[in-house]
């Protein structure tokens, strides 16, 4: 296994023991330190407060109500420990989640992945690194579903199809290099598209333009 650029201190919250152990094993083998592995939102909050991790990886559906404990815990973590990056795992696409996620206060990186992606270990570890570094990673399937329902009169209407394509890949957390590879264009062409996107969208000047563009995109 490749060593991560920086070993991360991670809290994992997942109620299914099999998956929790699997996650811990994958992350530890990648050189990260699991400071706690818990099974519900309450324990997650307790450990985040006491261990100050770099990133939290949490299932959304956990006991006791099996609805959105993970998401609610994430909102509290965001409010109380804004520096902690949060990676949410969901068994299905529910864009109510995405809305809540994006409306949370600015802070560390945010990720939202379908659980199925965890099996692509290398991609998953990459996503964890990117979120820990302050990036936004949203599952490609979620992005696709959001795009399909985009309102025609939103801020994105000003973008060309190609620019929207580039932005969708940015939302999935890809680097310029990776985007260039996927679209079969040069990295310079990607940078040019991104420049156009930044120019066309009303972005928040106080934050990272890349993150801000992705958020605008996801909010539609």
């Amino acid at each position, binding site marked *: 296994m490749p060593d991560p650029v920086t070993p991360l201190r991670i809290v994992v919250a997942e109620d299914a023991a099999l998956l929790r152990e699997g996650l811990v094993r994958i992350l530890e083998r990648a050189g990260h330190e699991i400071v706690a592995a818990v099974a519900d939102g309450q324990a997650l909050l307790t450990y985040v407060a006491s261990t100050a991790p770099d990133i939290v990886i949490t299932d959304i559906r956990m006991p006791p109500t099996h609805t959105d404990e993970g998401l609610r815990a994430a909102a509290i973590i965001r409010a109380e420990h804004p520096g902690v990056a949060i990676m949410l795992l969901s068994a299905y696409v529910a864009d109510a989640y995405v809305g809540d996620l994006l409306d949370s206060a600015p802070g560390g990186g945010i990720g939202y992945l379908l659980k199925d992606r*965890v*099996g692509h270990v290398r991609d*998953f570890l990459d996503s964890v690194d990117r979120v820990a570094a302050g990036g936004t990673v949203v599952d490609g399937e979620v992005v696709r579903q959001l795009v399909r*329902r985009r309102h025609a009169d939103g801020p994105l209407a000003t973008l060309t199809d190609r620019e929207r394509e580039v932005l969708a890949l940015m939302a999935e957390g890809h680097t310029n290099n990776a985007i260039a590879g996927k679209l079969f264009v040069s990295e310079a062409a990607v940078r040019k598209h991104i420049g156009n996107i930044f120019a066309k969208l009303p972005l928040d000047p106080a934050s990272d333009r890349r993150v801000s563009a992705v958020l605008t995109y996801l909010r539609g």
Partner: protein
Amino acid sequence: MSRFPDAWSAVRGRPVRFLTSVWPWRALAYVASTLPIGLAWLLVMVVVLGVGVATIVVVAGLFVLAGLPTLAHLAARGERWRIRLVIPGRRGPLAPRDGRRPLSWPEMGVTVLLATLFWLVDAVALVLLTAPVVLLLAPLLVRYDTLEVAGWRVDGTGKAWAAVAVGLVALVLVLYAITALACGQAALVRQLLDPPEARLVEAVAQLRKSRSGLVDAFETERRRIERDLHDGVQQRLVALTMTLGSAELDLPSGPGLELVREAHQQAEQALADLRTTIRGIHPQVLTDHGLAAAVHEIAGRSPVPVHLDLAVEGRLPPAIEAAAYFFVSESLTNVAKHAHARSAQVHAWTSDGTLVVSVVDDGIGGADPQAGTGLAGLRARLDALDGELDVTSPAGGPTQVRMTCQIQ
């Protein structure tokens, strides 16, 4: 204990089985109890009517007579209970116990019959019964006196035993007669108090209740299956893909790695299939977050752009949520398959305790409302919830599919 469901089927059954069943004795109990009860009601009626009519000039009589419907109701109540001796089974619907009740002619009729005709006829039947009883006791009775039954003198032991034989036959005949009489009276009372239409109305209400109970049970079961699949198989498959994914990172390239990659893909396909299956049974997002979130998810999967306008607050009963979910899912599938539409709209709202969901597309129209097993299945589902499904699809469009359903 009883091999017959009621007295009348016992009468029509084989004599040996009839005579060894409980029904002749129940019929006898019915007929015998009619006598004192009928007499008592006759007395009550005579007194009430007498006092009422006598005091009518001083107005007090009006109040006394006003009590008649209540008395008739009491008598009818008693009769409803008593006919179960010969026609068992569920009691008919009982009117509320309290309050002044309006005059009910059927109840009055039953009371008058009980106080006059019934007890008289039943008294005759009981008198008839004494003949076989006396004949059966003949060997005992001749020791003290000679007997004369219907003009036949019975004296001496030989004749007495002959009398027993005659008595047995007579007893059988009288028991048949008494049972038939009880059946006739009970049927008449039931006809008056619980006419067949009322019984049908009640049966329909009962059926509706049990049907909606079934639908609820069905829905609960689907949710349980969904939870089981999610908590069991799905978690295991995800764990399996994680293990295979880790193995891919460790293995040197070669045929072994290729096989593991293949296994990984197969596990992912299984996971995708399972996800589709769960969505068809009862989608997780519907269980967890209700109709609006689940419809968002359907719209997200639709290849035709969908505009949503969902004004449904909070959670609805699970069976209705599920029906509405599958309605939207099926309708949008049809839009994608047949409508050649550029976009579709889903509206959902509640008003006056009714949920309305409509799916409109801007396609070519001309959809056959009867076609498609999907919509037929939905119609059946909605029927069970007393909901409705309308399809309007003129040639050239637009097509509108609409469901309405009462929220209990």
